[in-house]
């Protein structure tokens, strides 16, 4: 059993989700509660990876993080590292493709918070940030948690973007989906099957928790 792939996958997915969470909350708040100008464009961009083939997202990441890309050059000059073909790139790839799922769930959760509760808080002296922290987020947290899980599940299963920007290096960037792909290519059916079972278990557990959370949200209305 390829434990390395399993742990690497979990690590990559966890980091990807951790990166996405604050960004998703910030973007959602700006779009849903602050109603900033240009929110339509922001919404489209945030949902783009959902509509694009993952390899395309991976390609753009490669352009940005690669040897000659703006971030790649900056990182090499400041920290002396190359991010491509490391687990960090795999995490970024997973983050990009799972972001739309997370952000859409967070937006829905925030939208569901009664605006009059937030207006009441404003009339009581709370500024917009305080309202977000004491009213909006506490009331939206179940929906946000459900979104987190959805994003995590998606990050677990990322293949196309990962293989483009991180490669398929066992022990370094070979996540579960990549390992399954390789086993199938090499005809190692038994190994492939084991990994598939693990992959499915992770997915089913996550979805069970996700649906349970959504159920709790519905019941609390």
């Amino acid at each position: 059993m390829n434990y390395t792939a399993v742990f690497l996958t979990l690590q990559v997915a966890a980091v990807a989700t951790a990166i996405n969470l604050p960004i998703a909350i910030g973007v959602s708040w700006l779009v849903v509660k602050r109603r900033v100008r240009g929110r339509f464009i922001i919404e489209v961009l945030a949902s783009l990876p959902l509509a694009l083939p993952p390899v395309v997202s991976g390609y753009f990441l490669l352009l940005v993080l690669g040897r000659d890309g703006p971030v790649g050059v900056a990182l090499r000059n400041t920290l002396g590292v190359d991010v491509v073909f490391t687990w960090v790139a795999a995490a970024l790839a997973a983050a990009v493709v799972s972001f739309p799922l997370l952000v859409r769930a967070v937006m829905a959760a925030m939208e569901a918070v009664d605006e009059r509760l937030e207006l009441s808080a404003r009339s009581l002296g709370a500024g917009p940030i305080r309202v977000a922290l004491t009213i909006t987020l506490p009331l939206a947290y179940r929906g946000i948690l459900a979104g987190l899980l959805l994003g995590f599940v998606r990050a677990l299963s990322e293949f196309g973007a990962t293989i483009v920007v991180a490669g398929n290096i066992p022990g370094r960037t070979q996540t579960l989906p990549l390992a399954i792909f390789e086993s199938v290519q090499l005809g190692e059916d038994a190994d492939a099957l084991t990994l598939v079972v693990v992959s499915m278990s992770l997915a089913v557990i996550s979805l069970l928790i996700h649906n349970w959370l959504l159920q709790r949200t519905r019941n609390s209305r």
Partner: protein
Amino acid sequence: MTDTFLEFNVRKQFPGFELNCQGAFGSGVTAIFGPSGTGKTTLLNCIAGMLSPDLGEIAAGGRTLFSSATGTVVPPERRRFGYVFQDAALFPHKTVEDNIGYGYALTPPEEREIDLDHLVDMLGLAPLMDRSVNNLSGGERQRVAVARALATSPRLLLLDEPLASLDARYTGAIITYLKRIARELEIPMVYVSHSLSEVMALAQDTLALQQGRTVAFGPTPTVLADPAIAAIADYSSLENILEAKVVETGDGRSTSLLKIGDAEFVAPATDRTPSETVVVSLGAGDVILSLDVPRRISARNIIRAKVREIHDVGDRVLVYVDIGRTLTVEITANARDDLGLREGSDVYMVIKTASIRMMT
């Protein structure tokens, strides 16, 4: 009210409707009255800072809160206005105590003029403090909402139809609380309502709105009698909402004796004790006026009163009579002419016991 606390000049365009009105409110209770959809809540929200007008100025206590000319916009959290929503809008994830304390904690100590314990006491909330707000009755929720808004020692209290979604049995109590707050805390209040009776019971001044425009403004009795508001006022359901002192209670009998103004009324039995204050409602159309004392009549109340004002409103006549406090009576123009009623006339009000409805 002769002093001005709040001045505004507001224009806001919506699809199919434009709010365009001006006003200068004093430091007592001012009502914004009109039918649904006429812009009352929009105006209130502009005053509160929750909406921005397209054009205009809003100033309170000499301080500019909004000016389209200079681009000044003071956000709601800095206006120090309390706001009570129609259905309380209490924070569901906090207890009663935490709801009330939310604004209190955000108020600088030197500006906390209202004592929190006194407030909780005044609104009868002490036994409810630990409760989740999701287990309260409608009347309790509204009282918590009022306490929460007042805990910030606001300079102005805004209320958006606070009684509209309440069960009838709670309205009397809330009206009493609001009157007490206006009296004891001396906070200016702006009260949005589509109910003539509420407006009459609570507000010194009234601004009548129709389709976003001011139709009348001035002391409430004058505005109510203004023919211009005949189109938007439903006089048939006009009720006098009155505070009464219990003189005698049912005690096995089916009636009680209540003092309203200088007169004593026979009312339905109550379980309240003598010298307690209750709230009753008496329909303006339920009062019969007579020039002589009727004899051998079933009505138990024959009360002497003096006519103060008579107004034609639409096809009805409103008569303001004085019994130590003012009551509003509605009769037909025919009756007014037949009886030859005029200001200063002495009349007798004939009222059935059952017409006096207990609200608390």
